[in-house]
């Protein structure tokens, strides 16, 4: 921006008055905009920046969550974070959960959204049914599903399997099956919500595009890959970002379904952080874990955004 030197020094020379009025007008406009941003800036400062600063500070101390008498310990807490077996196990499971949930939900939600966008009898009721799992608390869903997936022959799923003459499946007692079960319940709970998100984007695509494609002789597959999918790309970016960040921060579903077991098979990073800070009264270590975790989430989200943008351009 070019600013007149005469205005800056405050000397009104002949011919500079209109410029000063313009600058004043610009300044008032800019200030008005800032005033609108002020409330959210205060919220951001109070609920994010200050706690983040505190977490960074605590991560360098031996703070136990009780006593204010802190001792600076340098990067000791960070070294421990990378050598703790439960942290390493939980890191593997958390990434498995977040990535597999993101892939499966996306693969199911887009076709579901296209199906829900068609005209058929009872369409609104069907949409509501698919959206319903997103309404109850995920912790409640975890408790309900722990009965459904009970490894006993009396478990709901095992009862059905028993009716066709097959043996019980140890859904929650085998480490690998327990991991898959948490993903299954998460997919069940989130697919409907993300399908509604895609549906909103689908409804904003003008029907003229499809009519023109039909006139050009494009079949259903071609219309999907060359018209629907490229126009849904921004929705895919948003949906995947929500799924990835939610998956990386997950605590409630695996905890209510398996309590993090068997062993550390379904223990999440959030669970380790909460336990370390509250259960073990090691706020310093928990803060270091939280900082490392935040950086990991940030790196994953930035990478996901960059890849999604590149794919959007390619589509």
């Amino acid at each position, binding site marked *: 921006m070019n600013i007149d030197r005469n205005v800056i020094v405050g000397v009104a020379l002949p011919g500079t008055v209109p410029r000063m009025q313009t600058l004043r007008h610009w300044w008032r406009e800019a200030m008005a905009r800032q005033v609108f941003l002020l409330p959210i800036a205060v919220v951001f400062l109070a609920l994010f920046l200050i706690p983040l600063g505190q977490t960074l500070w605590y991560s360098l101390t031996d703070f*136990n*969550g*009780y*006593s*204010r008498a802190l001792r600076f310990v340098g990067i000791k807490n960070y070294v421990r974070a990378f050598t*703790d077996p*439960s942290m390493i196990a939980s890191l593997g499971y958390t990434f498995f959960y977040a990535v597999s949930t993101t892939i499966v939900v996306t693969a199911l939600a887009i076709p579901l959204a296209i199906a829900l966008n068609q005209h058929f009898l009872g369409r609104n009721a069907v949409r509501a049914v698919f959206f319903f799992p997103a309404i109850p608390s995920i912790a409640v869903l975890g408790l309900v599903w*722990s*009965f459904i*997936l*009970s*490894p*006993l022959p*009396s478990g709901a799923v095992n009862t059905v399997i028993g009716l066709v003459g097959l043996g*019980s499946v*140890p*859904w*929650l*007692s*085998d*480490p690998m099956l*327990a991991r898959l079960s948490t993903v299954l319940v998460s997919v069940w709970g989130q697919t409907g919500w993300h399908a509604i998100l895609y549906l909103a984007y689908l409804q904003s695509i003008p029907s003229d595009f499809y009519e023109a494609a039909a006139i050009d002789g494009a079949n259903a597959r071609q219309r999907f890959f060359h018209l629907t999918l490229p126009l849904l790309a921004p929705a895919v970016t948003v949906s995947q970002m929500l799924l990835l960040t939610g998956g990386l921060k997950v605590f409630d579903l695996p905890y209510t379904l*398996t*309590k*993090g*077991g*068997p*062993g*550390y098979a379904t*223990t999440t990073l959030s669970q380790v952080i*909460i*336990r370390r800070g*509250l*259960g*073990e*009264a090691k706020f310093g270590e928990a803060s270091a874990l939280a900082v490392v975790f935040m950086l990991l989430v940030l790196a994953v989200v930035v990478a996901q955004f960059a890849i999604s943008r590149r794919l959007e351009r390619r589509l």
Partner: protein
Amino acid sequence: MIGKDCTHQGHSRGLRRMAAATMLIAGSLLAAVPAVAEPTHLSFFSWDNEQVMKPVIAAFEEANPDIRIDFSNAPPVNEYVQTLQTRLLSNTAADVFIIAAENKNALIDGGFVKDLSGYDFIKTMNPQNRAAYGADGKAYGLSLASWGGGILYNKALTDKVGMTEPPKSWDEFLALAKKLKDAGITPYYDGVQSGNLMPLYALIGLAFSKEGGNVDQKIFSGQTSFEKEWTGPLSLYAKLYDDGLISRDVLGLSDDQIVNEFATSKVAMMGAGPWNLPAIRGINPQIEMNFMAVPGPVSGESFLSGAPSPGYAINSATEHLQQAEAFLTFLASPEAVKLYHKSSGAITTTADYKPDLDPALAAIYAGIEASRIYLPMTSWPRAQDALHTEMVAQIQNMVAGGIKPADVGKALDAKLADSQ
């Protein structure tokens, strides 16, 4: 202007005189009425809910009309510990609060709780309860109850295989489980998912009691190790799974599911504590059940899983010390203990009150009273939560068949070394 001013001054003088007269009359009247003292408000943060504590608090307030209890609570354990931690940090903690196994070290080491050693009310406490919430010979918590757990059995199902009395040794217990299995009855479920491993804790407690009872201190001081002390009891416990007497499916069962299976007679025995009885009777009021103590490797020896219940502590920063002392004195009285036992069902262990217990507990009450109870988490001097998490995870791995009993001890030794 002058006249107006004069008039105004005249009005002001009149008003002042009236105000002075009114104050004089009011003052005389107030002096004539005897002063009513405002009751002192004593804050109390509990992990028992209001329904449990209400009768006790009402009785206290009736006996002490000059003290009002401001009650608040958070459910155990993590939510309570977290809330108390936050309140202590912000200097808003209650005058009286609960000290539990999970936070006792932090509270005592941080100087947040007052030494109660000199008070009379401490004398009614069971010595084991006193030791559980003490350090360096001082007492920091008024613990009035203990819980004991063992093996709960469904009499109708055990009668089917001819059990006339509870097994006297661990081998007899395994033989009973085999008989039940052969008869097509699921023998036993344990809380492997939650870590409520009643038989294992009892077997460890029995082994430790034979060695003089201070084995945990020796482990923590480096004189012995978890691997050396735990492998024996763990190997006995692992036989249940290695011999196929319990399905490894217990890894995926919550405590509620186990209770449900037991109450609906789908399993003959379960590891249980007294808190399970109301839920089981709620589901199946007709069920005939009894506790048995966990039999040891030698015939005739038995032990229980259990621990002293959390205690009441006085905030060392309280401004109402006298009232807090009165409250704890009342809580330890037979009247309050009786009320608390009735509202909570807790197994109280104070010297001057004998609780009226569920008949199913009759077989194990003597063991609780004699403190033949053991729970690792309350016996470890520090790092309880870190070791408990590691212990549950490694025992789950052992039950899944991934590691041997000795590996559990090795993992606990490594965790202990890491927490130094």
